[in-house]
Each structure stands twice: as structure tokens, then as C-alpha cells.
């Protein structure tokens, strides 16, 4: 088989048994990689009542079809499991260089089963696979450990690690690689930690089998030359995603002080321009990327050691910065470093600290809870102490260690009304009160409020920011676009920013694999994944679907107090309208449950049977499901 490593590995951590099997071409083509492989495997194999941090959950590492190929930025690597944060399907991906390395070692999916009796790390050197003791590494910070393992194993190993937060089962613990690339969301780091896997180290020296190398080479070479002078190239190379900080403030979607408002006083101090001036050390790219959005930085704060980190990128600036009230790029960079080394997702992490700061402001969390410290807006010392408590699950840190939804449940006192989350997953760095398609995206997502499930901010602008009409079909289309990149495993930014079309990516797949892949076939895989993970969520959490697609009250009913979006809110009626419109356009019933007709259309009749057994199958839709589900609108991507 062309384009793939050729082998799937299963590791029983309890017994130490390692099983290898050839990657079936039918499986590869049906699911394409990473997010697809994960969705299918987790759905088929993890019992519905399995504890996400228990032995029955699986922890999966999987690159995708274009990973490690010469296709534009084929850098990505997927991780998957059942999420401890949402109790649903989880997948999260990272760029960097580990995914390609796994392919060059000859592997398409690594499945960790059960729990190791002792801390271990996975060692792969081409055909050699070993489960090695990691007692000496246990307790170390993510970045510190990568530094150590590079010394122990050699520079040419690619390494992914978890920090203390992952070891301790914090619900939003991440996996870190290449000194700052993260699979951040869904708590994949906690599941890795629950298996007592501290790190993954891989060296691959094999060549990737390619069907038509001259064709693939010319294809990508031409795209490189075409996009070099693209007007978006220079700003992206200079500032990376942080260039979006100014735009988001000007357009009233930047979270400030736990989303209390959407224009952040002092945003200029944490902008992309400030990053480039103040903290930037070098530009840093993922494998095969020629627009290098990665920014590697040094934070300098009097009284603290200088720290090196990758970032801060937009989401970290929005959530650790804006949402925590910071106005100094050095402070945001330092917060980024703290989260990275502790192994906390900077997105959920920043969101949760901002939420806790509001709790402190309102007197719900006190100095006594904080071991004598405070939790003041914009205070980096307070931030540092508090994230330490979370990562260790110490004292009040335990309350916040499982996300804002869980914290609000424990704290009570109406805190749920300002917990900006959906399905237990914290909002990305976009307020949605003037961006209802984005709110619909967050709330209908299988993993909760993550912008990479569908980024609809510019679609809102094109469709009209004050109307809920016409949003749903576009959100569905955007939700089908994202799995393309999450299964192919190349960076979406070449599509969104440099006008490299999805069709050009399927052309790359054709050259690479010899398959007659079309964008239509790939989009069908996307829709199949959406329906499969929706079913998975319902089978684990009960129905109807609508009761899970819930928006935070602040986004629905609390008008933005100031700034460019002053007075805006989505409104509950508008939100319910959009949900109904969304279900209808998806071919789901009015309660948000997938119907047999749509599942069978997608080749998932067994999923319909499973839902039916559990009383979760959608009622047939009079007149049938829409022939085309989703409507194209090309937005600016992020």
C-alpha cells in the first residue's frame, strides 16, 4: 500500500504484549487516518460504560494519509480516546515532526490498551518497539523531560511527553512535542497519564512508499512557488496566528476577563506585533511547512527566571491573556510556559483560570481557598500559583481540575451561567455573542467548544451577524471541512490563508496512494465521522441529543457591555431556531438524534441498530433527509 507506514501496533500495557498487523487498505481508505482511525476504533472497541481514565479506555496515536509526505505541510499527528473532560469521543492533533517520524518508522496507528503497572515510555526505533521503564522521568515537566530525553536518546528522536497534570489525571491535560507543539484538547494527556505512559520516543529512517513521486513532487513544488508571493504569507510568517489579536478586538469577539466583554483594554500589549518586538526568538515551522506560523519566544519577567517556549499563539493570548486580564506579552508568554511544562492545555487552562478569577472577583473563591494567595485579573504570580494547584489537584485546584462545567457543578452559586463551555469543553478564544454561527459550531461539536471543529467567525460576517438565518447549513459544511485536514493530517492554514484548495490536497492523495480520491469521497468520510462520533456521544451520555447541545447563558442572554459589539447577544430563541435548522439540515430528527436514513446513507447501518437498541435513534423525517447536507461558503480560516 502506498502512502502509509503499513503497520498497526497494539500494545497491552498490562502484560507488555506488543502485536503488529498490516494496515488493511480498506480501513485506510475508508477512514483516511488520525481522526478517522480514532473515531472508528474507539467506537468499535471501548465499552460505553468505560471510565475514561480506567483500563478499558484506549489511547491511540495515529498519523494520517498525508503525514510525512511531500504534500503541503503533512505534519499532523492525531491522538484519541474517550475524553475525561466531556465523556465523549476525543481526538486532538499536533503538528511538529513526530507524526512523520512514526510514518518513517513504518506505523499508521499505535493503540495502547489497559494500564501499565509502572511508569513507562514507548521507545520505537524503526522495527524495534520497546516498553521501557520511566520511573526516572515521572514527575518531570513536559519541556524539561523532552530536553532530558533528547540527551538520553539522541537528537534525531522525536518525542512527545506529558507533564505532572497528565500524570495526575487533570481533565484538560495535554501532550507536548517539539518544545511547544501540543495535542491540547479533550484531556488526551490525562488518558496517556492514566495508562502510565510518560512519553513516546520515535526514530524512523525508512522511506515512505509513494505511488507517483514525480507527480507528487511537481504538484507540491508548483504550489510552493505559487504561494510564496501570496499576500498573506508575510504577515503569517512574521506574526503567526497572533496577528489575529488586533482583528478579534476590532471585531468584538476577543475574550476579555472570562468573556465578560469582547474588547480587551490593553490588547495592544499582547498583540502579534508586540510578540514580534518583545519576546520572539525564532520562527519555528512544522514539518513541510513554508509559512512557519510557529513563534518561539523568551519570557523575561523581573524576579523570575527567563523561560523559553513556543508561542504564545492566538488561542493562548486570547485565553491565558485576554480572558485572564493580562496586558503584557511577557506575562502571557510566561503563562504559556507554565501551562506547557505542567502539561495543561493553554486553551482550557486559560479559560478555567479566567473563570476562577471571576469566581474570586465575586467572592465565591477566597484567599483561604487559594492557600493565602489571590487570583486577581492580570496577575501572573496569582496565575502561577493557581495553575500549580490545578496540576497537582491540590485543595481548590481539584475543584477546577476537571473543567469549568464540573467546577461550576461543585461550586454552585450560579457559576454555571458564566462558565464558557459546551459539553464540558471550554470555549476557544472567540466570544460568540455577535457570532451565532460560531456558537452553533461550539455547541453542536462532538468534543465541545473547540474552534477547530468549525471556525465560522467570517461566515457570520458574510451571512449577517445579527441573524440566525442561514447559519446552520454553513456550519455543517464547515464541520465537514475540518475532518478533511484532521484525517489527511496536513495543516488547514494552507487552505484558509494561502488558497490551496481541498481539491489540491485530494490530488496529492491521488499521487501519493494511487487511489482515485475525490473531494466528494473525502467529504463523505467527514460526514460519516460526524455521525459516528455523535452516536458515540449519545450512546455514552444518553439522549436526546438536543439536551447536550447547550450554550452558556452568558452567550445567550448577557449583552456585551462595551466595545465594538456592545449590546450584542445571541438570544435563546435564536439559538433554539439554529439548532432545529441544524438538525433538519443534518438529516437528524428534531431532538438532535441521527436517523436511520442518514446513517445508512453513510454506510453506518450498524450504528443505527446500536442507537435503536438504546432508544436513541432519530425518528424518520417525513419527506426524507436532505440530499445535500451542508452548504459551501468559503470563509477566512483560523
Amino acid at each position: 500500500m502506498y502512502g502509509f507506514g503499513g503497520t498497526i501496533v497494539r500494545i497491552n500495557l498490562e502484560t507488555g504484549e506488543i502485536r503488529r498487523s498490516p494496515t488493511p487498505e480498506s480501513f485506510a481508505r475508508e477512514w483516511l487516518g488520525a481522526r478517522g482511525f480514532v473515531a472508528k476504533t474507539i467506537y468499535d472497541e471501548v465499552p460505553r460504560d468505560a471510565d475514561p481514565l480506567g483500563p478499558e479506555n484506549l489511547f491511540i496515536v495515529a498519523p494520517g494519509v498525508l503525514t510525512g509526505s511531500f504534500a503541503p505541510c503533512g505534519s499532523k499527528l492525531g491522538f484519541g480516546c474517550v475524553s475525561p473532560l466531556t465523556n465523549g469521543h476525543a481526538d486532538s492533533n499536533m503538528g511538529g515532526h513526530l507524526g512523520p517520524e512514526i510514518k518513517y518508522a513504518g506505523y499508521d496507528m499505535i493503540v495502547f490498551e489497559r494500564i501499565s503497572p509502572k511508569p513507562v515510555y514507548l521507545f520505537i526505533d524503526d522495527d524495534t518497539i520497546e516498553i521501557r521503564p520511566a520511573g526516572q522521568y515521572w514527575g518531570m515537566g513536559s519541556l524539561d523531560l523532552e530536553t532530558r530525553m533528547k540527551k538520553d536518546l539522541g537528537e534525531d528522536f522525536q518525542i512527545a511527553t506529558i507533564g505532572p497534570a497528565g500524570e495526575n489525571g487533570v481533565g484538560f491535560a495535554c501532550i507536548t512535542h517539539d518544545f511547544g507543539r501540543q495535542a491540547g484538547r479533550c484531556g488526551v494527556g490525562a488518558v496517556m497519564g492514566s495508562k502510565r505512559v510518560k512519553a513516546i520516543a520515535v526514530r524512523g529512517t525508512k522511506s515512505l512508499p509513494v505511488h507517483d513521486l514525480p507527480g507528487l513532487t511537481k504538484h507540491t513544488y508548483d504550489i510552493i512557488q505559487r504561494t510564496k508571493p501570496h499576500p498573506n504569507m508575510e504577515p503569517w510568517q512574521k506574526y503567526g496566528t497572533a496577528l489575529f489579536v488586533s482583528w478579534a478586538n476590532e471585531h468584538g469577539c476577543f475574550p476579555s476577563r472570562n468573556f465578560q466583554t469582547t474588547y480587551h483594554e490593553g490588547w495592544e500589549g499582547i498583540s502579534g506585533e508586540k510578540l514580534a518586538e518583545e519576546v520572539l526568538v525564532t520562527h519555528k515551522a512544522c514539518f513541510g511547512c513554508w509559512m512557519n506560523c510557529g513563534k518561539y519566544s523568551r519570557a523575561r519577567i523581573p524576579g523570575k527566571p527567563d523561560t523559553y517556549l513556543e508561542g504564545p499563539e492566538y488561542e493562548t493570548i486570547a485565553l491565558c491573556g485576554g480572558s485572564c486580564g493580562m496586558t503584557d506579552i511577557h506575562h502571557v508568554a510566561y503563562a504559556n510556559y507554565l501551562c506547557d511544562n505542567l502539561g495543561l492545555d493553554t486553551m482550557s487552562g486559560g479559560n478555567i483560570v479566567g473563570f476562577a478569577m471571576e469566581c474570586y472577583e465575586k467572592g465565591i473563591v477566597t484567599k483561604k481557598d487559594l492557600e493565602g494567595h489571590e487570583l486577581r485579573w492580570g496577575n501572573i504570580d496569582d496565575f502561577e500559583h493557581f495553575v500549580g494547584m490545578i496540576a497537582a489537584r491540590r485543595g481548590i485546584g481539584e475543584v477546577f481540575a476537571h473543567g469549568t462545567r464540573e467546577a461550576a457543578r461543585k461550586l454552585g452559586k450560579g457559576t454555571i451561567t458564566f462558565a464558557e463551555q459546551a459539553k464540558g469543553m471550554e470555549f476557544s478564544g472567540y466570544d460568540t455573542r455577535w457570532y451565532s454561527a460560531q456558537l452553533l459550531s461550539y455547541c453542536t461539536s462532538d468534543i465541545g467548544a473547540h474552534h477547530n471543529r468549525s471556525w465560522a467567525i467570517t461566515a457570520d460576517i458574510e451571512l449577517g451577524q445579527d441573524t440566525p438565518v442561514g447559519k446552520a447549513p454553513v456550519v455543517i459544511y464547515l464541520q465537514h471541512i475540518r475532518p478533511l485536514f484532521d484525517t489527511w493530517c496536513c495543516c488547514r492554514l494552507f487552505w484558509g490563508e494561502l488558497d490551496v484548495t481541498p481539491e489540491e490536497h485530494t490530488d496529492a492523495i491521488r499521487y501519493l496512494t494511487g487511489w482515485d480520491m475525490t473531494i466528494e469521497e473525502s467529504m463523505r468520510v467527514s460526514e460519516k465521522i460526524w455521525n459516528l462520533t455523535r452516536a458515540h456521544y449519545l450512546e455514552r451520555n444518553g439522549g436526546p441529543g438536543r439536551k447536550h447541545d447547550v450554550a452558556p447563558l452568558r452567550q445567550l442572554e448577557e449583552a456585551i457591555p462595551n466595545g465594538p459589539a456592545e449590546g450584542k447577544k445571541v438570544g435563546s430563541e435564536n439559538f433554539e431556531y439554529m439548532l432545529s435548522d441544524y438538525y433538519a439540515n443534518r438529516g437528524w430528527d428534531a431532538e438532535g438524534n441521527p436517523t436511520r436514513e442518514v446513517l445508512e446513507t453513510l454506510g453506518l447501518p450498524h450504528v443505527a441498530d446500536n442507537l435503536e437498541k438504546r432508544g436513541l435513534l432519530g425518528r424518520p423525517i417525513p419527506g426524507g433527509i436532505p440530499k445535500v447536507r451542508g452548504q459551501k461558503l468559503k470563509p477566512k480560516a483560523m
Partner: protein
Amino acid sequence: MRIKVDRARCTGCKLCQQICTIEHYGEINPKKAAIRIGAEFPEPGVFTPRLCVQCGACARACPEGAIERAGSANAFVIDPSKCTNCGVCVETCPIGVMYVHADAPTPIKCDLCLKCTEVCNTGALTVADPPPRATSR
């Protein structure tokens, strides 16, 4: 003609390594590339592309006389029909830029094909001392 390295501009993307092995081996395999990228992280945070500067020490050391200047770029090139893969050149190279790979029949060395400079988008790898262009008045 030579390849000028500006390490401050290197982002570690490895496009150069991919195109290098495509060009020379008809394979995608960065570990076979004639250019390596050192990465000094977490501190000071610098990428260091390392490749042959065409000093000729390998040619002088080769017991088989398998390395000679050739081609339009006049680079030192390994003749695979003469090379016995003895490794003397690799040991001799004063800056450690003759590489080896288990599947490569000879050591791996830059032959100034310049493909890497064509894909590099940051100016980390550029062509220096280009041949003079014909001018007309």
C-alpha cells in the same frame, strides 16, 4: 557557486531534506538527506542547517579516487561505481557533513543541485556567487 546558509532564518521545516532525497534517491526520507538541521532547544532556540561547503577534504582523503569535481555546479561528487563505502571521507570531513544511512550505497553528500534553495521560503538557504549573467546594452 555555493549554498549560503543563514541559520537565523531557518525554521526547521525540513522541506529541504524532503526535496533532497526526492532528487537524489527518488524517495521521501529526510534521514537520507545531504542536509541536516541541528535544533538547539529549548535554549537558545536556534536551527542550524548543516551541509557540505565543497572544501574537497573528502576527495583528497578518498582511497579510491571516487570523489571528484563534476557537473555544471562543479561540486565534489561521489562516483558510485568507484566508491566502496569505506567511510574514510565521513571520518575525514572536517565539519561532519558527510552523512550515512543504512540503505544508502555510498555516503551522502551535497552535490549542489540547489533544489533545496528553490523550496526554502525563508532565505535560510540561498545560492551565493551565482554565475555572471549575460547582459546586453
